[in-house]
């Protein structure tokens, strides 16, 4: 090891060497952490502050938002989204409705399915568990673009899903072209084709209650299936971690006491997994509210705006219409929704635990 200070024996040098024996000074620490802090400030905190400023402007990205040509409009962008009747508010409310259904269905589906998958690959009597684990996790690490291409084909009018359905004599829907709300369709089977007067007459944010109650459109349902398919592998791993933390001794003791496997699951596994379930629901909620890639790649909000989501509205308003102030405002409203829901959900989860 090359030594920088050869021992000359003078007082100054040995003092310097002694100093090196002590813990490294503050300088090294600051130097080591500098690149991370710099990238954090420049590309995370800086951008958020800048977007907060832009959300108060009428600005089209053609000039400098600090010195250039812009109009300060205060909270007008937010008002247009939430209170002022108009196309923007209707679009935004539409996107909220779509996303509420998307989140409800995909979070429920993902949580249940990933729990079942985790139980299956954790089972002690089955072989090939690690193989199945690899298979179920693979969609989660594949790129959203590749998956979008696959799902465009799976759910094409003459695609794989409709091909399989036809084996059973079922004529599949025109998935990505069908704007029909699933709840409306089900009501239609029972002869409810027209909205009951009360639902048609009252409106909330520019949409009638009947429109709010449409359920996810058929097109959105396909995207829900995509979301469940891709994210269940990740949450399977979460549940697997939780299941493997349950001491074998505890299960053994319960079994010796005469509990059958259903009772072991219901009264031992499930209560011990409660915290993990809360965590998974929280994380699934956060990621599904932000759905963007699939919408951009597959449906672009169509048919009839039934797959519009806030993130997509934010993108389109900014990059297609050049209204970056509006786009940034949408992003902040979306962030607020996500954060409020996360806090509410954590609070609920803690109450019951």
């Amino acid at each position, binding site marked *: 090891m090359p030594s920088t200070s050869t021992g000359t024996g003078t007082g100054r040098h040995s003092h310097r060497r002694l100093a*090196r024996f002590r813990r490294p000074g503050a300088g090294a620490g600051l130097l080591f952490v500098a690149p*991370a802090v710099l990238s954090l400030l420049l590309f995370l905190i800086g951008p958020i502050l800048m*977007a907060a400023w832009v959300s108060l402007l009428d600005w089209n990205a053609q000039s400098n938002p600090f010195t250039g040509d812009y109009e300060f409009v205060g909270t007008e962008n937010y008002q247009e989204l939430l209170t002022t009747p108009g196309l923007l508010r209707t679009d935004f409310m539409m996107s909220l409705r779509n996303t509420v259904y998307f989140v409800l269905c995909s979070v429920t589906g993902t949580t249940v399915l990933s729990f079942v998958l985790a139980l299956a690959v954790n089972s002690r009597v*089955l072989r090939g568990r690690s193989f199945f684990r*690899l298979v*179920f996790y693979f969609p989660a690490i594949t*790129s959203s673009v590749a998956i979008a291409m696959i799902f465009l084909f799976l759910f094409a009018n003459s695609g*794989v899903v409709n091909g399989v359905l036809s084996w059973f004599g079922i004529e599949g829907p025109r998935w990505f072209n069908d704007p029909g709300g699933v709840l409306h369709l089900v009501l239609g089977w029972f002869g409810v084709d027209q909205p009951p007067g009360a639902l048609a007459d009252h409106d909330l944010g520019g949409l009638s209650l009947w429109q709010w109650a449409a359920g996810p459109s058929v097109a959105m349902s396909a995207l829900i299936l995509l979301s469940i398919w891709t994210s269940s592998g990740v949450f399977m791993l979460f549940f697997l971690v939780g299941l493997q933390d349950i001491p074998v001794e505890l299960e053994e003791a319960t079994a010796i006491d005469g509990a059958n496997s259903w009772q072991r699951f219901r009264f031992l596994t499930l209560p011990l997994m409660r915290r993990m379930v809360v965590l998974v629901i929280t994380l699934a909620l956060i990621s599904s509210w932000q759905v963007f890639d699939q919408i951009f790649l597959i449906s672009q909000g169509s048919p009839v705006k039934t797959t519009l989501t806030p993130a997509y509205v934010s993108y389109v308003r900014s990059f297609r219409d050049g209204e970056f102030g509006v786009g940034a405002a949408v*992003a902040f409203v979306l962030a607020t929704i996500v954060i409020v829901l996360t806090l509410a959900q954590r609070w609920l989860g803690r109450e019951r635990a």
Partner: protein
Amino acid sequence: MRRRGPRRPAEAVPVVLTDRFSPWPRRLAFRTVAYGLLALGTIVYLGPFLVQLATSFKTDAGATANPVSLIPSPVSTAAWEIVAGDNSAYPVPVARWVANSFVVTGCVTLGRLLIDSLAGYALARLRFPGRSAVLATVIAVLAVPNIVLLIPRFLVVNQLGLFNTYAGMVLPLLFDAVGILLMRAAFQAVPPELEEAARIDGAGVLRTFWSVVLPLVKPALVTVTIFSFQGSWNEFTHFLVATSDPDLATLNLGIARLSAGDLAGPTQFPLKLALATLSTIPIAVVYIFFSRYFIRFGATTGLK
């Protein structure tokens, strides 16, 4: 906490938790149903990738007429010829896209390795003013919804004059809170005596870090590498807003633009799926070789 004995080997399952003594018809029934469901699961989770591969060798008409069949008939390599650039009538700059993907992915991965390990070491071992504030901030930004950064990142990239540059594609992706926390945890697990010994032998901070500590956290470095590779290879939205120049398109962005432009609508599925296969291959290869890292750390880092 109750004391637990030495860990059992994975296979030594208590006999009461197995079905060894249940009556054989029940056991048979249970296993048939369980394996049946696992087989169904495998079809559902793996099937789409097989369809992807099979369809990429079909003709356009064959893909529409026989979507479910996994055996292309007639077999056609037309889609792959376009992907390979052999079809002069339909040029698609796939080689350029792949090269861009590798450049950007390589830079992001190297950058993250450097930044994450330096910051992780500082936060685990070095004392400096503001340390706890930095740590708290790194943890806090984990809660920032990713999509909220879409427009803000464009704004900063644009403001800094980095729009349509490799730097604008790479730099905003370098900060990686999960990686920093992962490296910090790995450094904390290294016994401090080693560093003290190195220091007494006259090694400076950088030397101790580089030659003594870093080799001991290889598993964490591998984890950061594969997740950075996977994350930036699959990245789509940031490149979508940070570039408009077709020459800078990564593979995924190129596919997305093609699919929204020339190939819009239910046409040319073999070509779309050949491109999708190409984009899946590097991830699949890394996954096969490093699967245990993916499975072990997937629960901590698998989320965007």
